[in-house]
């Protein structure tokens, strides 16, 4: 049985804001399925009572002093903007309220 279906690939692609052609989706589903099959090897590893590693080196939390740096020149901030109006970035209109602001 497949580890990942074509539908799931499309769902995940939507989450990642990628659009795939039918051919690409088919191929990705196949490749991802084989990769997921390969990673099944981890199921055999006994990890009971083993803490997950999210950071390899034990470190103290570095804290930054609360001093405001000078703001980046807006012209520099906007220099790479594909579209701008004044000092604002411009994007195509949002169709629906996609996410909380």
């Amino acid at each position, binding site marked *: 049985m497949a580890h990942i279906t074509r539908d799931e690939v499309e769902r995940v692609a939507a989450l990642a804001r990628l659009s795939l052609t039918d051919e690409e989706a088919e191929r990705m589903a196949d490749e991802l399925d084989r990769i997921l099959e390969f990673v099944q090897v981890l199921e055999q590893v006994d990890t009971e009572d083993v803490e997950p590693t999210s950071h390899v080196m034990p470190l103290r939390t570095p804290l930054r002093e*609360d001093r405001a740096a000078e703001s980046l020149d807006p012209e520099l901030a906007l220099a790479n903007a594909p579209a701008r109006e004044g000092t604002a970035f411009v994007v195509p209109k949002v169709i629906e309220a996609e996410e909380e602001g």
Partner: protein
Amino acid sequence: MSQPPHPDYEVVIGLEVHCQLRTQSKLFSPAPVTYGDEPNHSTHPVCLALPGVLPVLNGRAVELAIRAALATHCKVHPHSVFARKNYFYPDLPKGYQISQYEDPIATGGWIDIGVEEDGELVTRRIGLTRIHMEEDAGKSIHAAAVAGSDSTHIDLNRAGVPLLEIVSEPDLRSPAEAGAYLRTLRQLLRYIEVSDADMEKGNFRCDANLSLRPHGTTELGTRTELKNLNSFRFVEAALEAEIERQADLLDEGGRVRQATLAYDANTHRTRELRIKEDAQDYRYFPDPDLIPLQLSDAQIERERGALPELAGPKRKRFQESFGLSEYDARLLTESRALADFFEAAAQAHGQFKTVANWVLRDVLQALGEQELEIERAAITPESLAALIRLVDVGRTTARSARSLVPELVERGGDPEVLVRERGLEVVSDTGLLESTVDEVLAAFPDNVEKYRAGEQKLVNFLIGQVMKRTQGKADPVTVREILARKLAESS
């Protein structure tokens, strides 16, 4: 409850508040925290999410978060984790928000609110589920104003600003309680100087969750979420509208479905923004660019030591130690700055009730008229005390002194000097007063007749006339004596 919000259903409300922390720089970026700037004038590579940037945690934000947690009786966790909340939106430059998910900095506190029950003020304890730190997103400005425009403008000044998310348990039982909770929370945050908590400036935002259930049951109904609530009144009105909507739906035998709604003040109705079928898949995972936050006992205790006396205890102390009424104490402790001003002035003067009257009546009025907060006013506690003392020793009249308060509030100054310069010193030259009284008695013979015929109240009119002729500078006590003597004389 004096009047339950709905006869047939119990109302269950939980509130999620996001407040902006009072820091100079952003949470993970050293860019300045500003307000009202031109778009993208407060940015830095980090909050622009340029390729290659990394977050570094603002230590002050951590201190303020600890303080807020302690003030609300939460458990502060010595170990908490920053997690990425992944979603796409143009005002979220990294494509994820750094927040806290499984391991927040604080859980399990409470806030006491005062609610009216059968005409009495009763205390209810509202539980807090958690408090955590996260960064704010930027602003999307839908350029509908520009004719024919199909675009949205993105301003990242606000992106990365430090927020505290405070989540209440679903313990609130009415829109009024929700309002009380918000007001109390806001006051608390201002008292401990963690946030300016100004809803109008957008640094105190509220989302509400509401569900209904039949009275006497314990299972929670399906809840809806109300967003974009811009003021306390809005919150209460929106909750009322949603209660009505849900109740109507349930009455008809329908089912409430999970959704996010907005409130339309014009129609006083709520409408669906989108349907929450499943929760959005945010794919939370611990942020690998940040080390988990480890707090020492010393850090936590330092913040505990920095907590000021809170409104509730201060109110009690004002009542018990200074003999003020509950009402007056409540007004005086509305803000910490006002309470501190009052207390300093009262200490300087010595008579707490007297000073309370002056503050509540004259100072507050002047502040209101000048649209100032006490922090911005020029008047000092010492100068108010000095002003009142001038009245106490008879150097000037209460009326004259009161007229000086607005100026002191606006420009400050030495009351002694002002009284002299404005010629407000009491006229106690008895010779002048005697002749003025004579003038008045001569000018109003009818009233004198009536007075002697028994209308004792008319003496006030006569005193008023004397005050008028002396531009209010006569000492009213002396005037009353002279009048009384003279009126008695010729009868």
